[in-house]
């Protein structure tokens, strides 16, 4: 069965606007102005012959001069006393931890250059998120503070210490309040340091606050079960998942862990067992999770509460008021009924999650889960997640205390309320009333610039520490380099200021572990530094039953829903790259295309295409968005298929004014949020008006056109069960292939890759991992607009219509469609396919790209003369041209143009210069390195020993790399899967990368 469903990457492609067709005719967006050059000067000059001779003479002279050069003097400076475990040229790996995930830090000659997952760790079989991959760049960020500052002037740590200690003692004597305001801290040692600080200065209170808060869940669990915790959700145990605006594969609580669990029920292994989970998503804006859902139903923010009440009523047969508000949305109404049926059928294997930060909504969700028997099975309240403990109410009362002038000193530790608090004016005015304001921020950010004492903390790669993301699971943070700048980690500063007998934080962490954690696990400190984590085991998950009256709760939901039901409802969200805005100065993340909209370097106001039409808006129109509190921002519009009509989605995390040289991107949407029902809520309303201007977003979605060729394959779970080949057209088998070229002999190895479209969620961490590993330049917003992004791997996102189960196949049917709300999405990672019959190889006039005997398509940069024929001839559009010397050109001051960030470069990979083509090399440096390691140890290569950077970063295990010549290798097995197909195999390029058909678990209504 061949699917002839129509797939499209963007609205411009769908509508085939004349500009789009024109732009896509050519491989490169802009033509070289060759005619201008020729008609102006060049050949039309009076005496081109003389010019030619002049040039010839100069050329000859230059070559002769070059020939006369003596060898350049390169200094080679060895260690004075070489550390025993460092060998120049050999990478060292150290375990550490970031955001609670155990990681390995690769260092070369003492400088960290790459973060990799710690495969041996408890949860980390593979994968990290994009932010973790990119975090290494923050180490070398030149926008950070270079040392401590006192009242705006550089100073020394000694002076800071004596000043702060003096002030604290005075405050202690006067009885004024001292507050430590931090983002959530999961580190047991850091908590202990703060506790000892509080013992020294008893007026101190530790306030935790998160930019994106989960205090709704914490409070709801406290109300429902008496435990103010975020439970461990077990998506791996859930057969039916209903998510109401929770982006659990991306930004909600712990996207990486959830991705691993979620994909475990949907990947090849699970399908082989005839098992696939069902995922129904109700949401406003199109989120990463929404794109992966089997069924996705757009709902407005005001409909979320009623939807949850309706779901409760359907599941329990209860009669809570408020469900009728959903009646106007018939699609959602029917979907809720169906979802309830499915949930009830999967009792004990069902899970309902909500992304709301509202206590009432989360309380009803608790009631639903309790009715479904989820506690003890898919939700574990006893082994809680420690990453988020921020308390919105505590922070609000802290702001009040400051306003009343009761606070004498405040310490900001990893929190930045001047930027991310919903009422920044209230906060800054209140802060001005505090005499001693200390910031531990690594840069002079929005809050730090209001502080008198700047005591910059070190990067996690320069620090000791620990984390405990989940109850019973402890990871160690160990430094991999001396501090790059004159910084000192915050815990060390607190130790110094609280006159702690232990002045050294390393000793402090060590003795804390040796006293509290290691004995229970039966491990030594040395074991810990090797393994990176200790797991004391999960407590048995108890089952909890919800008891309580929901009537009052439902009333609150109804009234809040009514308040939201305005003409234009606003939905604030985090996107996968920027998250809460903490990484704003990270160029890798700024250039990582959004998983859904493929926009880089900006935030925007996403609206539904039909809604925009009704309002008379068009794409990239600048609009003024006026929040309920009068806060106004101007953003470009983006037409987002799948967006609920009457709503606008805006990403937070942008509009940083003081993050650093590249962080000034987009507009800050946090002040649009409102505090309601005791917590910060991202659902609100706004008035929107056109300003008249236009602003083109740098969007990569339609940069590489396939001219309508069908390159994704899709089927339904029902069809798959009938025939595993369903939807996977084995085109190649039907034909006899004629080869113009002799077959490549694969002596030794045959490197291939398998990508499971059903596992890939489209998160994009592979892109960042590839950037870091392969020294891929960041080109900036303007160059992305010019279609000159350099990413070797990209994730193509294809939309298709779901119209009541019918698939839309022809263009003319599209225009007849009522709306674009009901669409589904397929993500496809696209990279060099390493074709055996590579079209690029045959057109290169200088043989700079050629095939190897182990199945790779090599690219010799120093041979390339930049004709770009290969890119024109590549049907997969994966070749990238260096238009500039991005690493040494002040116009691209993104990250590589200084001596610090250049330390990040992988010394095993050449930095490409201007005028050279590049593309995925299949991490050839890793292949060669892995082979050499085996040769040195005189043993055979082990399958799985060599991993690609993208593969390593993939939490979903969607990418498998290996040797096809080994029939037992994981990749050989994966490619023998019935779902395997090769992209554009009909043109006989014989790609080395096989894809596995996407399967969707659609239930016929």
């Amino acid at each position, binding site marked *: 069965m061949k699917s002839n469903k129509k797939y499209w990457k963007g609205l411009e492609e769908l509508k085939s606007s004349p500009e789009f067709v024109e732009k896509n005719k050519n491989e490169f967006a802009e033509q070289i102005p060759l005619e201008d050059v020729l008609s102006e000067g060049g050949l039309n000059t009076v005496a081109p012959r003389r010019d030619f001779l002049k040039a010839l003479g100069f050329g000859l002279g230059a070559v002769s001069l070059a*020939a006369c050069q003596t060898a350049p003097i390169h200094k*080679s400076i060895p260690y004075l006393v070489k550390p025993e475990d460092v*060998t120049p040229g050999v990478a060292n790996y150290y375990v550490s931890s970031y955001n609670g995930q155990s990681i390995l830090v690769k260092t070369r000659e003492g400088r960290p250059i790459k973060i990799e997952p710690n495969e041996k760790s408890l949860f980390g079989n593979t994968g990290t998120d994009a932010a973790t991959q990119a975090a290494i760049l923050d180490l070398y960020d030149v926008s950070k503070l270079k040392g401590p500052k006192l009242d705006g002037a550089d100073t020394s740590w000694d002076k800071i210490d004596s000043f702060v200690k003096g002030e604290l003692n005075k405050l202690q004597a006067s009885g004024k309040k001292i507050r430590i305001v931090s983002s959530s801290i999961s580190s047991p040692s850091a908590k202990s340091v703060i506790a000892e600080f509080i013992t020294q200065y008893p007026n101190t209170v530790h306030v935790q606050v998160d930019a994106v808060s989960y205090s709704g869940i914490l409070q709801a669990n406290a109300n429902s079960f008496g435990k103010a915790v975020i439970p461990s959700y077990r998506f791996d145990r859930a057969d039916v998942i209903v998510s109401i605006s929770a982006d659990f594969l991306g930004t909600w609580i712990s996207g990486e862990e959830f991705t691993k669990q979620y994909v475990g029920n949907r990947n090849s292994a699970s399908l082989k067992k005839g098992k696939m989970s069902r995922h129904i998503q109700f949401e406003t804006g199109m989120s990463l999770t929404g794109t992966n859902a089997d069924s996705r139903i757009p709902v407005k923010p005001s409909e979320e509460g009623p939807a949850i009440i309706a779901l409760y009523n359907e599941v329990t047969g209860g009669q809570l008021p408020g469900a009728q508000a959903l009646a106007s949305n018939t699609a959602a109404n029917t979907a809720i009924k169906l979802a309830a049926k499915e949930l009830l059928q999967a009792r004990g294997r069902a899970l309902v999650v909500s992304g709301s930060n509202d206590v009432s909504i989360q309380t009803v969700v608790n009631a639903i889960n309790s009715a479904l028997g989820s506690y003890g099975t898919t939700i574990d309240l006893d082994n809680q997640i420690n990453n988020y403990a921020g308390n919105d109410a505590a922070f609000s009362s802290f702001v009040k205390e400051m306003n009343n002038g009761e606070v004498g000193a405040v310490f900001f530790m990893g929190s930045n309320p001047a930027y991310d608090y919903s009422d920044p004016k209230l906060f800054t005015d209140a802060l001005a009333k505090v005499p001693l304001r200390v910031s531990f921020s690594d840069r002079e950010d929005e809050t730090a610039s209001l502080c008198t004492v700047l005591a910059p903390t070190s990067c996690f790669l320069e620090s000791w520490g620990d984390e405990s993301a989940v109850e019973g699971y402890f990871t160690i943070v160990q430094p991999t380099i001396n501090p790059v700048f004159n910084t000192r980690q915050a815990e060390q500063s607190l130790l110094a200021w609280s006159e702690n007998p232990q002045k050294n934080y390393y000793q402090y962490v060590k003795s804390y572990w040796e006293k509290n954690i290691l004995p229970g696990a039966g491990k030594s400190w040395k074991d810990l530094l090797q393994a990176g984590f200790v797991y004391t085991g999960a407590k048995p998950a108890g089952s909890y039953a919800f008891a309580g009256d929901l009537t009052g709760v439902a009333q609150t939901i109804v009234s809040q829903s009514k308040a939201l039901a305005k003409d234009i409802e606003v939905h604030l969200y985090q996107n996968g790259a920027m998250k809460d805005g903490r990484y704003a100065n990270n160029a890798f993340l700024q250039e990582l295309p959004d998983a859904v909209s493929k926009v880089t370097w900006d935030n925007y106001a996403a609206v539904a295409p039909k809604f925009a039409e009704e309002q008379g808006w068009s794409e990239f129109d600048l609009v003024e968005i006026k929040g309920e509190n009068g806060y106004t921002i101007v953003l470009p519009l983006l037409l987002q298929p799948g967006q609920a009509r009457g709503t606008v989605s805006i990403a937070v995390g942008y509009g940083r004014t003081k993050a650093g040289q590249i962080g000034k991107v987009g507009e800050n949407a946090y002040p649009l949020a409102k505090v309601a029902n005791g917590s910060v809520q991202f659902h609100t309303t706004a008035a929107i008006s056109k300003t008249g201007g236009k602003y083109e977003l740098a969007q990569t979605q339609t940069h590489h056109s396939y001219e309508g060729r069908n390159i994704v394959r899709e089927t339904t779970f029902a069809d798959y069960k009938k025939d595993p080949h369903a939807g996977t057209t084995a085109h190649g088998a039907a034909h006899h292939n004629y080869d113009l070229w002799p077959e490549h002999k694969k002596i030794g190895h045959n490197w291939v890759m398998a990508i499971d479209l059903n596992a890939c969620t489209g998160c994009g961490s592979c892109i960042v991992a590839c950037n870091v590993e392969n020294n891929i330049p960041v080109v900036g917003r303007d160059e992305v607009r010019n279609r000159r992004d350099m990413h070797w791997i990209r994730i193509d996102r294809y939309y298709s219509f779901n119209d009541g189960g019918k698939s839309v196949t022809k263009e003319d049917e599209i225009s007849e469609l009522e709306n674009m709300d009901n669409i589904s999405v397929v993500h496809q990672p696209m990279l060099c396919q390493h074709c055996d019959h590579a079209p690029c190889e045959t057109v290169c006039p200088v043989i700079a790209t050629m095939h190897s005997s182990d199945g790779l398509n090599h690219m010799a*940069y120093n041979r390339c003369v930049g004709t770009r024929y290969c890119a024109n001839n590549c049907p997969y559009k994966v070749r990238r041209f260096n238009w500039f010397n991005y690493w040494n050109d002040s116009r691209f001051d993104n990250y590589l143009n200084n001596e610090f960030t250049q330390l990040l470069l992988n010394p095993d990979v050449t930095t490409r210069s201007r005028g050279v083509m590049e593309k995925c*090399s299949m991490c050839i440096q890793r292949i060669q390195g892995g082979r050499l390691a*085996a*040769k040195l140890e*005189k*043993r055979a290569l082990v399958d799985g020993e060599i991993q690609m950077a993208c593969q390593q970063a993939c939490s979903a295990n969607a990418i498998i790399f290996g040797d096809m010549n080994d029939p037992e290798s994981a990749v050989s097995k994966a490619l023998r899967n019935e779902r395997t197909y090769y992209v554009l195999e009909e043109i006989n390029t014989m790609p080395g990368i096989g894809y596995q058909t996407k399967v969707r678990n659609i239930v016929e209504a």
Partner: protein
Amino acid sequence: MRSISLIFRSVVKPFIFISALSLGVQGFAQEVPALQAEEAATADAAPAEAAAAPSKGDPAAGAAIYKQKCTSCHAIDRAVVGPALKGMSERHDEQWLIKWIRNSQALVASGDPAAVKVFEEYNKVVMTPFPELTDDDIVNIIAYVQTEGDKPAAPAGGAAAGAEGAVSGDSGEVSNFMLGGLILVVLITLLVILVLNRVIKTLDRVILQKKGIAVEEDGVVSTKETAYEKIRRLSKNKKLVFFTILLVVILLGSWGWKAMWNTGVHQGYQPEQPIKYSHQLHAGTLKIDCQYCHTGAYKSKNATIPSLNVCMNCHNYVQATDKYNGEISPEIMKIYKALDYNPDTKEYGPNQKPIQWVRIHNLPDFAYFNHSQHVSVAGIECQQCHGPIQTMEEVYQYSPLTMKWCINCHREHDVNTEGNGYYDKVVEVHDLLKQGKKVTPAVLGGLECGKCHY
């Protein structure tokens, strides 16, 4: 007859020119084969292992430990920091040696007369104790020292290097000889032609004179002609002008060709180094193993220049005072200065400054080269690329380090597959070897761009 001589002359003149030209060109060409003298030096891996060692130990196992632990202070046949080891098993019994090697100070302290004697004799330099060595290890070392000591003195530079040198020398001589012969033949031919020419001329004249015809001397210059007029006259000779210009163009062309090909090739590059470190002394005379200092060559892409703590392993004691009238050698003083080390108090100070060596072998950044691949996996001797390093007072770049040079080697040499499990699994290699075919890196894809350029 006259016409004959004219014809002959018109043929001979250009011939002389062409010969002269070809000589000139050959002169250039002569240097090229020298570059290609890298002949396959199939270094005999096992240079005639001494038949059944008399000691019960395993000399091969001992050799590894010896190179790792002993060479910094000992040599087989000459005293370095410690005594020459040759004949030590005759001087002392095995049990004594085991005790001494494991912890010499304990033996001295116990009052063992032999131990005290050795200790006194070598200026009371404390030998590093090796408690980690087992009895078997030490017996192996003794066996190795014995086999080495029994060997006749090897030519400087070790067997393999010697063999390599000989091979390349041979190939150089052969080609030089042939070239010389060729030039000689051309010269002789030229001479014969010139003589014949003269003879014909004379005969011509004699015949004409006999016939009584007065001949105006052809080509004889009047004595009054000035140099200027001579040039003017010659410049009217079109053939001469043509050939002169041709000669100039060819000379310039061949010079330019050669110069352009050698752009960026720094063969023979010999920069001045901050310390006058002599490889001839350390590697040649003292026979310190390359691995002792360049530890990276066996496990890393970089061979690594040793850090100063490696130097200090020996130069704590070795100060070459005998050569500098009791003063410490100024070159060794440079090490002390860099480490801020006081040789009197034997203490290190805080003002340490690294030594800035000048890189000799500069491979371009876009070429990936890994020492361990070539040294540990392929088992290539250092000298193959770095030349007779053990004879170099100052190191220079021996090989051209051009891509052609790399590729030639990859084409000609066998891959060292023996005993390497990696290649066992590469089935095709196995088959080729079974068929008795040569497996070069080129066969395994070692000439593909991406194997070195990424």
